[in-house]
C-alpha cells in the first residue's frame, strides 16, 4: 500500500513539481496551498504518513501549521519536513522546538528528496 504525503506550499509550481517527483516514486500525494487548508484536511480525516511544508505562506504560515498540527493527538508523531528558501537560524530553531522533524532548503532535486523521505520514513 502506497504511503501518502501531504505537500503544503503556496506556489503551484512547487506543489506540482514535488507531487510529480513523489508520484513517480510510488507515493500517493495530497496538497494544500496554505496552512489553514492543510489543517482543515487533517481535521477532516486525511491521514498522511508525512507532511512537507513551506514556511512563508498566506493565511497560515508553516510555523503555525506545525504548532497546530502537533496539537492534534493523531499527528503528534507524524514526520514533518520543512522545505523552504528561508535560511534564518531562529526560524529553524522555532520549527524544531514546535515539532518539525527536518529542514531542507529549496530547490530540491528528485534524488535528494527521495533520499530524505526514506530517512524520515524508514522502510518506505
Amino acid at each position: 500500500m502506497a504511503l501518502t504525503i501531504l505537500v503544503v506550499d503556496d506556489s503551484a509550481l512547487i506543489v506540482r513539481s514535488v507531487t510529480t517527483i513523489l508520484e513517480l516514486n510510488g507515493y500517493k500525494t495530497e496538497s494544500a496551498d496554505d496552512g489553514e487548508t492543510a489543517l482543515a484536511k487533517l481535521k477532516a480525516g486525511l491521514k498522511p504518513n508525512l507532511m512537507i511544508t513551506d514556511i512563508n505562506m498566506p493565511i497560515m504560515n508553516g510555523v503555525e501549521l506545525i504548532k497546530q498540527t502537533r496539537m492534534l493527538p493523531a499527528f503528534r508523531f507524524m514526520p514533518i519536513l520543512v522545505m523552504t528558501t528561508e535560511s534564518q537560524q531562529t526560524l529553524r530553531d522555532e520549527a524544531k522546538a514546535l515539532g518539525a522533524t527536518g529542514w531542507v532548503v529549496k530547490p530540491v532535486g528528485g534524488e535528494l528528496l527521495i533520499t530524505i523521505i526514506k530517512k524520515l520514513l524508514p522502510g518506505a
Partner: protein
Amino acid sequence: MSMEINVSEQTALLIGSHLQIDAAIVRQLKEVVGNTEHAAMQLMNECQKLSDAANLIEAMLNQPESSEELRTYHQLILERNHHLASGIGEIIGHIQFQDGVRQRIERIETAIAKRNVLFLVFAQSVVDSDQGLLELPLQMREILDEYLAIEQRHASVAHDQEQEDASMSKFEFF
C-alpha cells in the same frame, strides 16, 4: 526663478523616465519566469499522463488471464520507467529554481515600488523647494537596508554544480 522651476521640472521628468525603465525591466523578467513556469507545468502534465498509463498497464496485468510474455514486457517497462523517473525528478528539481527566481523578483519589485514612492516625493519636494529633502537619503537607506535584510534571510538561488555536490548539506534532520 523661471530657470529654477525649469530645472525642477526637468529633474521630475528624469526621475519619471527612470522609474518607467525599471518597471519595464521587472515586467520583462517576470514574463520570462512566467513562460518558463508555464513550460514546466506542461512538462509535469505530460509526466502525469505517463504515470497514469503505467498504472493502467499494471492494472491490466493484474488480471488472471495476462500472459507470461506480457508480464516480462511489463517488467522491462517498469525498469525503464524507474530510470526515466529518476531523470525526470532531477529535471523537476531544476525547475524549482525558477520559483526561487520568481520570489526574488517579487522582493526586488517591492523594494523598487517603495523607492519609486520616495523618488516621487523627492521630485515633488524639488518642485516645491521643500526643506524636508534632507531626510530623503536616510529614508532611501532604510528601504535598501530592509530589502537586504529580507534577501539575506533567503537562501541563494544560485544553481551550479558546486551546490549540487553539496546537496545533502541543504538538509538538517532534527
